[in-house]
């Protein structure tokens, strides 16, 4: 059985006795290892997350190149084609969301990052539809994303508020520990929210496909895919980017 979190029991390895006696559903909904290598005395595993991430990065790059070709070939004075309309809708949505949440002054600087984040998380979350294990159901990926936000929050805080960013922590002196815990818990709660939602969908779909007999699984699991992969994935991608925008704008506005 393979775990859901960082402790991984790879495929080839002999499993602990108590674990192998329980059901093997864990290996179907957990992270699988495909191979390992030694580096600097540590053992690194190539897992299903890495492979899914590689596939997604290639897919997003191909989509971006295709979008670039469509934009270059489109006639600015003519009637836009259907692909051009879709691209314009996405870009306008990202621009409007960023500008209205981060202000017109600073919003323009962040829209590239916010757009990348939104597209990456959305495509990661819906990749369960295509048979991949969503990379965002691995805590390493979501924690990395949340740490980028954490660094951006404090970089912008120091850049725009200077020393006030530190003294704000001691604003009411007795509440200092609570303020510090609040700052530290921001990336943890953001990453756990995204991870928990996507993992919940993955676990429920895994239980559905592995516990029920095969002849019952006709058509109606599609409804579960629509809810857990498409709807929940879109909502969580929106929420993660929205919280990123709110926290960063809170940092440079000084509350």
């Amino acid at each position: 059985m393979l775990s859901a979190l960082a402790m991984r029991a790879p495929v080839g390895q002999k499993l602990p006795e108590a674990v192998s006696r329980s059901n093997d559903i864990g290996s179907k909904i957990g992270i699988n290892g495909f191979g390992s290598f030694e580096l600097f005395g540590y053992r690194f595993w190539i897992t299903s997350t890495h492979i899914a991430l590689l596939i997604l990065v290639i897919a997003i790059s191909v989509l971006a190149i295709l979008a670039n070709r469509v934009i270059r070939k489109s006639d600015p004075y003519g009637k836009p084609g259907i692909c051009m309309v879709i691209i314009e809708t996405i870009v306008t949505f990202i621009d409007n969301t960023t500008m209205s949440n981060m202000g017109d002054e600073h919003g323009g600087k962040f829209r590239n990052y916010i757009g990348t984040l939104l597209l990456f998380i959305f495509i990661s979350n819906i990749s369960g539809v295509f048979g991949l294990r969503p990379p965002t159901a691995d805590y390493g990926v979501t924690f990395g994303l949340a740490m980028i936000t954490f660094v951006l929050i404090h970089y912008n805080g120091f850049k725009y508020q200077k020393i006030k960013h530190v003294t704000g922590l001691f604003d009411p002196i007795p509440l200092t520990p609570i303020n510090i815990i609040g700052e530290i818990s921001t990336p943890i709660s953001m990453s756990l929210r995204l991870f928990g939602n996507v993992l919940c969908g993955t676990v429920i779909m895994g239980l559905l496909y592995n516990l029920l007999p095969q002849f019952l699984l006709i058509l109606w699991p599609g409804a579960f895919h629509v809810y857990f992969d498409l709807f929940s994935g879109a909502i969580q991608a929106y929420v993660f980017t929205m919280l990123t925008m709110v926290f960063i704008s809170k940092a440079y506005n000084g509350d």
Partner: protein
Amino acid sequence: MDGIFNKEFVQGCSALGAGIAMIAGLGPGIGQGIAAGQGAAAVGRNPGARGTVMGTMILGQAIAETTGLYSLIVAILLIFVNPWA
């Protein structure tokens, strides 16, 4: 003592604990329901502000969901990555 604290006993208690942990799903359910009800009331009073109300409601609901997800993570840890079993 050896007969009681064996692995089967610990695994069974972990499964019970995972079930009990998911009682925390009550809280986010109530909170999200209240948020959705207030959102519907707000849209009813001011239909023009539908987009803003919807965004705020979804953001609040997603944050209210966090405590439920913590219990989910605890339950999954107890079943799949149990350190004692």
